[in-house]
């Protein structure tokens, strides 16, 4: 499994990687520090999953997700952000994001992340709840 992690904090990128590696030791990781890099990397590398923050310098996560979803409706994107506004979650659900997880990553919401990566159907629950 190849995962692209997009976040402007080096610590956050590595922390997320560590979290996933505990469950998937063989996973391959790619990193980007902002929206533009994330977009480029996606186009070139075509990872299986993208895990992205929203508040980043440059075009930001939302614009990046928009651009990727525009060309690839099959892309699997998980948002990991400290922004908890309902309206934002709804917007991301409309964009077709698989899941919206609140930072920080802990045992509880980490389980949600793992579920998505395992392709479990519960994965859409939060996104559906937001859109509904």
């Amino acid at each position, binding site marked *: 499994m190849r995962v692209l992690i997009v976040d402007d*904090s*080096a*610590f*956050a990128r*590595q*922390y997320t*990687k*560590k979290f996933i590696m505990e469950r998937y030791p063989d996973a391959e990781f790619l990193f980007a520090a902002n929206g533009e890099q994330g977009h480029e990397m996606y186009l070139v590398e075509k990872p299986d999953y993208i895990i992205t923050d929203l*508040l980043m310098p440059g075009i930001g996560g939302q614009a990046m997700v928009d651009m990727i979803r525009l060309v690839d409706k099959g892309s699997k994107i998980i948002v990991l*952000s*400290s*922004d*908890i*506004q*309902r*309206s*934002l979650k709804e917007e991301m659900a409309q964009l077709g994001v698989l899941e919206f997880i*609140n*930072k*920080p990553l*802990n045992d509880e919401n980490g389980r949600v992340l793992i579920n998505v990566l395992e392709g479990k159907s519960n994965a859409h629950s939060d996104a559906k709840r937001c859109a509904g």
Partner: protein
Amino acid sequence: MLTPMQKDALAEILNVNMGVSASLLSEMVNQKIILSVPVVELKQGSELNAASLKRGDLGVDKSIMTLVTFGKKFKGNALIILPQDKASILANACLGNELTYGLEEGLSNEDADVIKEICNVILNAIVGEFGNLLDVRLEYSAFEMDFSIDSLDEKRIIPPDSQVLVLYTSFFLTMSQVRGVILIVLSASSFDMLIKKIDDMLRGIDV
């Protein structure tokens, strides 16, 4: 002294806390507000006093101070300090009227009430996030607001042996910016608890 990796982790933790606060605030007042944390300093309690904060470079000459005290396993005070003249800009922005100048007549009662409420929400969010991070249940004292920062010199607010995270932050409104300072005053043992948690998180990570 923190290592670069610890600093990185601390910065990310604070960014997340600020992000949660800002989005709560945004949702509460239905306005677009972004809270930044550009600079974080770690200072000993004894190094900080009202005089040092009153200096122009912090832009908090005539200031409003809001405070919440928390404990017990994780113990300290959290404060937001805002310049009084800019505070009315912030208060009005929350109501959807954006002024671009501060008012000379000072804060009205209504503005003060709005500031009190939004600082309450922000501090609750920041401290609450720390509680979640460290997985401890916190107890809170009542929320205080003061129209000067002179009481900062009282040992009860910044004990000399405490460790203080000084966050120079800005509220980004649609047309203007209000700078303020957030102080997270932690007892020595509570600071150690935080660092221990950070070290835990850093285990197995090469940044």
